């Protein structure tokens, strides 16, 4: 009999990375300027994990896919109108705050509680997916903490590929230094996989998938539990955006070969 998996994807929403993001210090600590004004998207790393999860579920009939997402209900609803068109899933929303830099422990505790309460979830079949990074302010530990809290010790980070085997084991490609992958074989689920970009293209928008998903998404959003993330042990002294390096030079007389040569020198000098 083919293996059946229960795949849970943890994916938050973040301001569209194409927006101008500007850290500010507010009354509740650091945050992003006008964050509620900015359009939101599913965190791109976690979105990759959702598409990979859908692939796993499609290949293993009887498997199930949940998307657990914490964010303001109205923003979640808006993001779901795009995501719901791409793959089929069951949404478990948690109505929580956006903005600021919440304590990863508080976030992990809330998400763990939500996952543990998923109706019909068999933790013996659990594959916990998420992004290994965030497009805005990833602590880089939330997924690992959820895994720990759920008692899952097989954890992989920077995953680009998973290959399920007939005996229930699976092979994972994790990113390591030098642009290489480390190949691991895991005896079986449960496991935690923090995804890098994966290998799948973003699925096309399929309106019928969207319509089918919405039948579950809207009621789930209406019933979403409201939480406050009380992370009072963590204080940020400062935050900043990664520095952008942009050097522009206008060259009128250089040949294409000369420009290419200069670029090669610049790249290899790193």
């Amino acid at each position: 009999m083919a293996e059946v998996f229960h795949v849970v994807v943890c994916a938050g929403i973040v301001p569209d990375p194409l927006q101008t993001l500007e850290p500010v210090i507010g009354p509740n600590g650091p945050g992003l300027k006008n964050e509620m004004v900015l359009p939101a998207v599913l965190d791109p790393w976690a979105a990759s994990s959702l598409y990979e999860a859908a692939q796993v579920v499609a290949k293993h009939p009887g498997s199930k896919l949940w998307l657990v997402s914490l964010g303001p209900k109205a923003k979640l609803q808006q993001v779901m109108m795009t995501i719901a068109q791409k793959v089929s899933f069951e949404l478990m929303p948690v109505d929580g705050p956006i903005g600021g830099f919440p304590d990863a422990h508080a976030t992990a505790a809330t998400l763990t509680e939500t996952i543990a309460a998923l109706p019909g979830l068999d933790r013996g079949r659990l594959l916990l997916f998420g992004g290994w990074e965030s497009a805005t302010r990833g602590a880089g530990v939330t997924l690992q903490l959820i895994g720990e809290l759920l008692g899952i010790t097989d954890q992989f980070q920077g995953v680009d590929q998973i290959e399920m085997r007939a005996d229930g084991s699976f092979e994972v490609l994790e990113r390591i230094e030098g642009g290489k992958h480390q190949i691991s074989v895991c005896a079986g689920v449960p496991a935690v996989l923090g995804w890098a970009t994966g290998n799948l293209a973003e699925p096309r928008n399929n309106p019928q998938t969207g319509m089918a998903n919405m039948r579950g998404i809207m009621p789930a959003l209406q019933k979403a539990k409201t939480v406050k993330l009380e992370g009072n042990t963590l204080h940020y002294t400062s935050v900043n955006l990664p520095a952008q390096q942009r050097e522009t030079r206008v060259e009128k007389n250089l040949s294409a070969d000369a420009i290419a040569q200069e670029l090669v020198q610049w790249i290899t000098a790193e």
Partner: protein
Amino acid sequence: MSVDAAGTETQVAECERQRMDVDIACVGFGPAMGGFLTTLTQQWNKQPDDPAFASKAMPGMPLQVICYERADDIAAGVSGVVTRARGIRASLPNLNPNEIPMAAAITQERVMYLLDPVGASRRSLPLRAADAMLRAAGRLCVKDAAFELPWTPGFLHKQGGLVLSMGQFNQWVGSELMAGGLAQIWPGSPVSGPIFGGESGTEVQGIRLADQGVDCEGTPADGFMAGMDVHAPLTVVGDGPVGAVGQAIDQRVGMPKGHAQREWALGMKMVIELPELGEDSELKPGTVWHTFGYPEPEIFGFLYVHPERLVSAGIFVPSWMGDSSRTAYRYLQHYIQHPALWKHLKGGTLRSWGAKSLQESGQHGEPFLSGDGYARIGEGSGSTNMLTGSGVDEAWTTGVQLADAVVELLRAEKPFTRENLKATYEVARNASWVEHDAEAAKNARNGFHGGVVRGMMGMALAGLTRGRLSLKARIPAAYKQIRAAEDAERDDALARVAASGGHPLHDVIMTARGWPEIPFDGKLLVTQQDALLMGGKVQAMPGFADHVTFRKPELCAACAEKTCIAMCSGQAITQGAGGVPAFEREKCIHCGACLWNCAHSPDGERGNIEFRAGSGGLHSAEN
């Protein structure tokens, strides 16, 4: 090769398409659709058990109302607006601007005539004389090279209205609607055209979504997914002035006798975060400035102040500015540097930027408002009032009127035929203030086809007499409004300069005309390409066909004007091989300017550029 739903030749052979049936299919989510869906939802909420709201497409379910929006997010609208908000407030009596980011109640309105502090503006003799008189009068009436009109004409007033960010307003309305549960709004879903049928071939039976997984010419490629056919007894067309569905219907059924959409403008603006404001700053939230006279006499400008030190500043470049080298971005940069504005904006930071085409024909360009199986609302239906410079409230109200008509027909169990829609929607619209004001505005801008001074006089005449008096004009097709290149030999030389320096031609022409180079500061004065990255954030999903195509490439090859390149807001249209422009859809912000900025027509009315449904565009909600 086949012909798609919009009647356009495509590379996709007939293939099996998914089909879905809904009760009402809607195209385009803007203020008109906001008004339509809000009213429909309100009516449903009052009587959810009313059998009129039971779905026929999906028995046992409530009415299936699906709206498809091209942009990747419903907040990705463009335009900061000032509106009287009569219709909006009538629908939403408890509307609190504080709940909508960037919204403010109007506190002050000013109208200013801007003198030319640079000396490059191309002013007629009468204007030069007027300028000289104003300058002679000195500081008594001119301050910062601007003359403030002692009063704001009543027809321009927006008293009691709102300053809004269209993106934020759409986002707010959209989330209220979605929470209501009746309507679904799907972003990232371009609609390629209507599905025509019926005996006459003009009945609209639904819409077809754009094909995905195709190459730039529309040929199926990896991951091909044929666009789904969505069938509905009623299609609500609110896809704006350059929308594919509206265009296809106009081409199929024609326009009412004597009507044509020939007057356009490109609105381009920046959202600017101001430096700290002093207590005595003039720029209080809700401040509205209307300007004219600079950077060119034909270009109108505006400045709206939002809360939290945000300002929208922009210009309108009209089609009747016949200059073949007309452009928007560089003019906008000169506009914000005018001393009257710059003293406030200097030191500010560009937060967002965008542009959109405005249909400025008013009633002259009003299409058939309804037909068998469809109804038109919003700007694409000719609702924008060109005398008051107002469109959002009018668009919203047409949506409300249609929703009331739809509910009436549903309750009466009458089909959505042209006859029934005419008897309900069109009758209500024709009896409303929208049409009454549009009638007064009908000929208000005629004079501009005879020059700016004549145009201003005509506008004042129509405005002050509520349309009873106006100037007559023969309005040529948009392509005919573009004058031939003034000096082909000079332009050839400039073209060589542009090519060797990697500059756009219109930029070089403006410099040659005496416009100073822009002193880039990297924050507010940035190159157009930087604006795409800093302010607008343009992106396009892969797998869609090019939505800008050139109908007869030989016309492009022989074209000397290349106005499409000069007016392309995203610099997505550039010089291409053999004289035919090249199009990069990844840089297109879907402003639609290319549709009416073409000096040549294969058919005597439309330009040589096809503007179809496409994916992507601006990713900014602060517009």
